[in-house]
């Protein structure tokens, strides 16, 4: 009886084979299609940011090898949708706090500062807020962590690397009413330029200048200015 039942079950299974194959194929199609769609739509922004960093570092190395006396080195940065989440940050060999990716020496990194707007003070702290000086935004620990987790770094052969954005005061009332300097360069979704300067003793600075104060720097809360009179 049991043998007969088992034979029947085997027969049933054999009948089900085409359906099983069909279901497996359909599942495979869905998984494959979903994976491909994910691949297509997720990697683009990361690839673009990575390519920008590689291109900037390659161009810096190219300029370094040339006779650059009396010549300006300007590198165009072509933006993309979502580019304003990404920042170019430089770390020097002797910096005490820097991402692990950059432990060997000096490097340039491109880092994603997610949810930057409204959380900008998680990423930067303001230093030297004296009346006579500009306001400088220094990177905080969270920014370094972001570089480690969501960033890419490339080594550069300079003893010191500095990235700097200089925003002129554009006239909109703000707590600062002064130019703002930031220790990193934010990408944008338009075409911008960064200026590369080679200093003595193997020092490099990458600079971005703008005539407009960034919106996020206009709304600096008063409590962040303990020294302002």
């Amino acid at each position, binding site marked *: 009886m049991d043998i007969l039942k088992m034979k029947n079950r085997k027969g049933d299974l054999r009948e089900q084979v085409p359906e099983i*194959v069909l279901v497996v194929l359909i599942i495979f199609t869905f998984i494959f299609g979903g994976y491909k769609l994910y691949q297509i739509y997720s990697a*683009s922004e990361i690839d673009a940011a990575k390519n920008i960093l590689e291109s900037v570092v390659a161009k810096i190395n*190219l300029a370094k090898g040339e006779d650059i006396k009396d*010549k300006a080195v300007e590198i*165009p940065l072509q933006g993309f949708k979502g580019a304003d989440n990404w920042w170019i940050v430089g770390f020097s060999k002797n910096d005490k706090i820097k991402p692990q990716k950059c432990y060997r020496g000096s490097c340039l990194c491109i880092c994603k500062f997610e949810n930057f707007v409204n959380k900008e003070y998680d990423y930067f702290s303001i230093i030297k807020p004296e009346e006579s000086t500009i306001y400088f935004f220094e990177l905080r620990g969270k920014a370094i962590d972001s570089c480690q987790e969501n960033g890419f770094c490339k080594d550069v052969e300079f003893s010191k690397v500095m990235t700097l954005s200089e925003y002129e005061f554009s006239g909109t009332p703000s707590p600062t009413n002064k130019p703002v300097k930031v220790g990193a360069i934010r990408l944008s979704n338009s075409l911008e330029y960064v200026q590369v300067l080679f200093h003595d003793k193997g020092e490099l600075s990458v600079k971005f200048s703008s005539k407009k104060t960034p919106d996020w720097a206009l709304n600096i809360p008063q409590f962040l200015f303990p020294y302002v009179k």
Partner: protein
Amino acid sequence: MNGKKRGVSSREVILSFVAIFCFVVVLGFFHLWKSAESNEDDLCYLSVLSRATAGEISISAKGAVPLKCYTKKICLSDKDCKSSFFGEKNVVNIGLPRDNDKARGLIEKTTADEIYRCWKMMGEGKLDLFSTYAQSRGWEQAKPVCVICSRIAINLTGGEREKQILGNLDVKNYMRYNRVPGTEKTYIESISGGELKSVAVYDDEKIKNLVTEDNKKIIISDANQLAVVYSQIHSHGYGEVFKNLGSDVAVATAGIALTPGVGGALKGATRVIITVVGAKVAAVVVGVGVAAAAGRVAYNTYASQDFSAAFCGEFQGAGSDSKKGCSIVQLVPYNKENIEKICTYLDGYP
């Protein structure tokens, strides 16, 4: 005896065919994805179609679909384009012939091909790719958005050669009299549907002045680079905007009515407000609010159309309605000043 000798049932045959068909479809998909991956144009077109289709379903879904269109880098040179493309990936190098006329012809052909490729890849101006939900409701003004399809760097040795070639460059003329390979139409006919004025090609003077730019002080720069830029602005008409807003209100009202608690609370609140004095205050507040909102919407719609007319007007023929918007492929020198003039922001990837 009874079941053992039976042949294959028709159900099994059908299922086998369906299985084989599915397998073929999977293989086809795989081939399509592979070719799309290897061919950036196909991938871009696929993403353009995906975004346009998503926009048809829901305008807010459109923004979530990225345009996987990468800027193609073309180096037309006697030697190389180190100063333009060093460190950049996928650069297409095309050597120029020594003969100045032939070199000029090759630059014109390459540029015309790139303009045509850009136009085709971005949906020939038929697809609304960039308008947002806020714009469709009149909350935000329409702005031109661009994709830089190609960057063409021209690197010529010798000042006289530069002058001879760039000074006589006439891409517009080339596009007017030469046919798109494999078709019976000229480039201009293919792009503009025969209306010569409906597509802007470029500002001749700016291109000719490329050579006069002082690029000696700059060793890495955008000098001697042209950009093929696809820009699109779509302003929505008053009727369309208010219809969209109306449909939103209908959806919101239905949502509130269907949400247990919220609909009830609102009904309760309405009962509280409607007293003799309260009704007047409520009517005034609601009236002012609606008028202000409608005024803002109307202003944005007007401003969008005005901006669109100013932006598109110079590129379109007299008969066309430039207030509705336009899609244009332009050839401009690749620099901040020119790109900023035609693009509020960039889409696609560098």
